[in-house]
């Protein structure tokens, strides 16, 4: 006889407590490693130093400005990717002919490294804001199409068949059955994709940028300002986490009917 441990549930309080402990442990290791001199200050700055840089950057307004500009780029790049990727994905998940046209190309391009596109994008669209938005678009679009197609295909056949036997035509089946049925999964997909969009930000701001969080990190590297690099990375992490939580919250409110 054994005590079942695998996948055994724990209380929400316990979960939160363990999560907090993990974060505190990380912080503790960081503090110990940097302040006891195991690692050189230049490689791993003291957390307090990072914090003081952070506070100073907030005070002089540079952090806020850079965050604003980065959020703007991500939002626009992601909105374009959604505007094209969601309809393409739904059509691809619904019609085999379109799948044959779209899927192989997307599978091919999604393996190409996004930073490698940067020089090309500079040639194509210049070095303005549109270049940064294009990088985020390319990074997310091809993945998004494939994932949305999977969401559309995950709608059970018999749900669609039930629609047919109640009188839906092809268009009605897509708008009245496939789309509402896939919405919760679609929102989950968007939640994951927006996380990836944040990771492409740094690539995007390689393009002759002079503002933005990614740019701040790159610039700090040139001057070996590791405290500023850390502050930037942590902030991107936090912003990503915040977006993720907002999406999760909206999903829960929007779809009370999910099991």
């Amino acid at each position, binding site marked *: 006889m054994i005590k079942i441990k695998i996948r055994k549930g724990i209380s929400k309080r316990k979960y939160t407590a363990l999560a907090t402990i993990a974060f505190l442990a990380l912080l503790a290791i960081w503090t110990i490693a940097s302040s006891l001199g195991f690692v050189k200050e230049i490689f791993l700055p003291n957390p307090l130093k990072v914090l003081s840089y952070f506070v100073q950057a907030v005070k002089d307004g540079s952090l806020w400005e850079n965050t604003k500009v980065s959020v703007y780029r991500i939002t626009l790049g992601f909105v374009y990717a959604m505007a094209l990727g969601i309809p393409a994905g739904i059509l691809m998940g619904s019609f085999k002919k379109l799948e044959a046209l779209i899927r192989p190309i997307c599978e091919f391009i999604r393996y190409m490294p996004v930073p490698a596109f940067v020089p090309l994008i500079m040639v194509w669209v210049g070095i303005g804001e549109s270049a940064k938005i294009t990088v985020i678009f390319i990074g997310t679009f091809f993945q998004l199409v494939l994932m949305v197609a999977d969401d559309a295909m995950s709608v059970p056949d018999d749900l669609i068949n039930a629609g047919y036997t109640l009188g839906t035509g092809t*268009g009605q089946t897509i708008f009245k059955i496939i789309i509402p049925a896939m919405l919760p999964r679609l929102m989950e997909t968007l939640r994951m994709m927006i996380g990836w969009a944040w990771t492409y930000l740094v690539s995007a701001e390689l393009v002759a940028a002079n503002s933005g969080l990614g740019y701040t990190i790159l610039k700090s590297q040139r001057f070996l300002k590791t405290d500023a690099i850390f502050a930037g990375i942590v902030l991107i992490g936090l912003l990503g986490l915040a977006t993720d939580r907002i999406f999760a919250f909206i999903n829960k409110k929007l779809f009370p009917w999910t099991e």
Partner: protein
Amino acid sequence: MFFKKKTAEPAQNHIEANLANSKIYVKDVKKVYSSAKGETLAMTGVNLNVLENEFVCIVGPSGCGKSTLLRMIAGLDEISGGQIVIQDKNIIGPGPDRGMVFQSYTLFPWMSVGDNIRFGLKLKNVPKEKQEEIVDKYLKIIGLEKFKDSYPKELSGGMKQRVAIARALANSPEVLLMDEPFSALDPQTKADMQVLMRQIWQVEKPTVIFVTHDIDEAVFLSSRIFVLTARPGTVKRDIPVYLPHERNLGLKDTEEFIRIRREVNSLIDRNPIQEN
């Protein structure tokens, strides 16, 4: 390219189908599955004729294609040969004239119970007040008036299938197709559902084609049973069920019921499990 409308051609030899008041007429239907290994003949020479207001059950050994036959009548699977006619028209695809209740739960989870039942009526542009009237009528028949505004996730399996039946019937189809709708339910719920289904049929008189592997269920519900052979499936026998019109669970213990059940049972091809 994607919204091309197909129109059903009138059946060529529909005179045959019009003898008596035939609803569904299946003639020489064949089903072949093609795969890399070659072609498999799943069904061949299937003939059956379902009359108006009949409650017909289709039984047969597993793999005989009874569900496939039903899906071909629904227009969800293609026939490889022969023809299927619904009231003078060849079946070329699914449509609201053939309502269907599936084995899996197919209520639209984002709609309330009431909106699920209303779905087909809305598509047909039935006036609002009339929609409401029909929805309420069927909610009453299935005894779920209190659940009109509930989401499907709040219902038990049996309740979900009751709503699925109401949703199909509210659309007033020419024929109601049922594909093992009670097979996932526990025995008590299943028995209750059989009584309810029989009551609905006695009052509303829909034409029903009901596929099941449960012979007890087939005898209890139907007025005629088609027994299919093992693969390649074809109709082996067509057995009329002469049992009282009003039926309750006590019927299952009567001699006549047991006799018919035994007869149907003896007709089903067995594939005994080999002892090594």
